C-alpha cells in the first residue's frame, strides 16, 4: 500500500534554476528509503515539499491517497500528526529556552492531541533510550547524540506513520552515529522512513530501498543491495567510488 506518492514534481526558486526536475517516488507503508545525493542535489528541497512547507511548481504529492495541500487546514493538521521530521543539526533543532518536556510536548499541544501529555512524553523519552526524568532539563545540558534522541522523541510522540530524517546522523561522531542509526532502524519497524543522506554507508545499513538524486533528477532507484552491488548510472558509480574505505594493509601516503 502506498503511503506517499510523488508524481512528476518539479520545483525551482526561479525559472532558470530548477532544483527538482520531474521527480516521481512512491513510499509504501513500512518502507525504508534512503534518498542519496551530494549537497545541492535537491534532497532537502524534496523534503520541504513532502512536508508541505513549500508547493511544487508542477506535479502532485499525495499522502494516503489525498492530495497534499498546505492551504487545507483540516487535512494539514491530520497530516502533521502522521508525518514528522528529524533535522540534521541537533544544536539548532531544539529551542534553547524550552524544557525538554515543552519541546517534546509541542506537537501534542499544537495538534490538539489529547491524553496524559506527561506520560506520552515520558514514553517517547524511554523509546529513544533516555530517562523519563530528563524532561525538566534544558537542551544545553545534553550532548549532541542525546539532543538528537530528544529530537527523535519529539518526532515520534504524535505517533506518526512517516518519519523523515534530514541528514539526521551527519553531525554526529562515529559511535553516536551508529547508536542513532540503530535507534532509527528499530523505530522504522513501526513506521515508514525516508532517510535523506549523503552517506551511502549509513543508507546501506538502514534502508531497504535507495533513490539516487543528481541535480534535481532521480538517476537511479531500487533495492539498496542491488543498486550498490551493480550501480547502473555513472553518477552512482562515482558516488560509490568516493566512499572512503578502511585500509589497514597500506600505509597512508
Amino acid at each position, binding site marked *: 500500500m502506498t503511503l506517499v506518492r510523488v508524481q512528476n514534481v518539479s520545483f525551482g526558486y526561479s525559472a532558470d534554476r530548477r532544483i527538482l526536475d520531474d521527480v516521481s517516488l512512491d513510499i509504501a507503508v513500512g518502507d525504508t528509503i534512503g534518498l542519496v545525493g551530494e549537497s545541492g542535489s535537491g534532497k532537502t528541497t524534496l523534503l520541504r515539499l513532502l512536508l508541505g*512547507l513549500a508547493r511544487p511548481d508542477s506535479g502532485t504529492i499525495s499522502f494516503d491517497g489525498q492530495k497534499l495541500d498546505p492551504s487545507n487546514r483540516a487535512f494539514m493538521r491530520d497530516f502533521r500528526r502522521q508525518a514528522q521530521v528529524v533535522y*540534521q543539526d541537533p544544536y539548532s533543532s531544539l529551542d*534553547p529556552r*524550552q524544557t525538554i518536556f515543552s519541546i517534546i510536548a*509541542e506537537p501534542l499541544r*499544537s*495538534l490538539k492531541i489529547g491524553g496524559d501529555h506527561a506520560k506520552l512524553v515520558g514514553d517517547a523519552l524511554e523509546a529513544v533510550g533516555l530517562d523519563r526524568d530528563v524532561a525538566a532539563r*534544558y537542551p544545553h545540558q545534553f550532548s549532541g547524540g542525546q539532543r538528537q534522541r530528544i529530537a527523535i522523541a*519529539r518526532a515520534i510522540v504524535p505517533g506518526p506513520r512517516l518519519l523523515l530524517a534530514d541528514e539526521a546522523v551527519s553531525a554526529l561522531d562515529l559511535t553516536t552515529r551508529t547508536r542513532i542509526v540503530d535507534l532509527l532502524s528499530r523505530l522504522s519497524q513501526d513506521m515508514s522512513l525516508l532517510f535523506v543522506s549523503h552517506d551511502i554507508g549509513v543508507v546501506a545499513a538502514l534502508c531497504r530501498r535507495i533513490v539516487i538524486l543528481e541535480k534535481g533528477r532521480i538517476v537511479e532507484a531500487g533495492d539498496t543491495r542491488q543498486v550498490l552491488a551493480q550501480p547502473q548510472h555513472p553518477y552512482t558509480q562515482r558516488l560509490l567510488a568516493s566512499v572512503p574505505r578502511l585500509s589497514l594493509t597500506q600505509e597512508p601516503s
Partner: protein
Amino acid sequence: MTPAAITAAPDHCRPSLILWAGIVLVGLHVLVGLLSLVWLPYDPTAMAGGRLEGPSLLHWIGTDRLGRDLLTHLMIGSRIALIVGLGAVAIGAALGVTLGLLAAFASKWLDDALAATLDILIAFPTLLIAMLVVAASDTANLWSAIIALGIALSAIVARLTRILAKRVLVMDYITAARTSGSSWPKIVAIHILPNIWPTLSVNFALQFGLAVIAEASLSYLGLGAPPPNASWGRILQEAQGTVYTAPLGAIAPGLALVSLAIGVNLLADGLRDTIDPTRRAR
C-alpha cells in the same frame, strides 16, 4: 585550586552581585519617588531658606538661587525620571518590537522598505526626533516628552528586533515548530520572543538610561516637564549659572541621573543572567 575552579567562581557570584547592586540602586530611586508623592521636606514652590545655601542640617544638599530646597526637587526628579524612563521604554518597546517583527516576517521589498526607513530614522539623533514630536504637539509637557522619546527610541528597538528575529527564524526549531503544527502567532510567542528577549531587555535598560538623559536634555531646553514638577534636567539647567559658586546644584542631579541609569542597566543584566536557562550551570 584547579584552573576550572578559579574560572567558575566569578561566574557563580557575578549574577547575584550585579542583580543586587541593580535592585539597591533602582529600589532607592523608586522609594524616593514614591515617598515624594506623600511627603516632601519642603514645599517645592516656596522659598525654604536663603539663596544658594550650602549643605546644612535643614537643607541636606543646600538651596537653589531662588532659595528653594534642592533635596525636595531631586526627590520629585526621581519620580519624574522613573515615569519618563518606564513610559518611553514601554512605548518604544511596544512600537519597536511590533514593527521589527513585521519587518522580519514581511516580503522582501516591504522588509527592505521598512529597514531603510528605520535606518534613516536612526541616523537622526534621538533628541532631535523627540524635539520635532514635542514641537508638533504644540504643548510641551511631561506626556508629550514621554511619547516623543518613545517614538524616537522605537526605531532602534525595531531594527534590533528585526535582526534578532531573522536570526531565530532560520533555526531548525522554528521549522520543527511548523511541522509540529504550531501557528505563526504561537511560534512568535513561544519561540521567537523568549529567544530574542535577553538581548532586547538589555537594550531596553540602555534605552531607559537614554530616555532619562534625553528628558533631562528636553527639560534643559525647556521642552520637558514644566515647573514646579522639576526634572533633573531642569535643576541642572537652573544650576548652570551658579555652577562655580554652588557646584552641588549641578553635581547632585548629575549623580542622581547617573546612579539611576547604572542601576537600571545592572538590574537588567542581573535579571537576564538569572532568568536565562542557558546561563545556569549544567
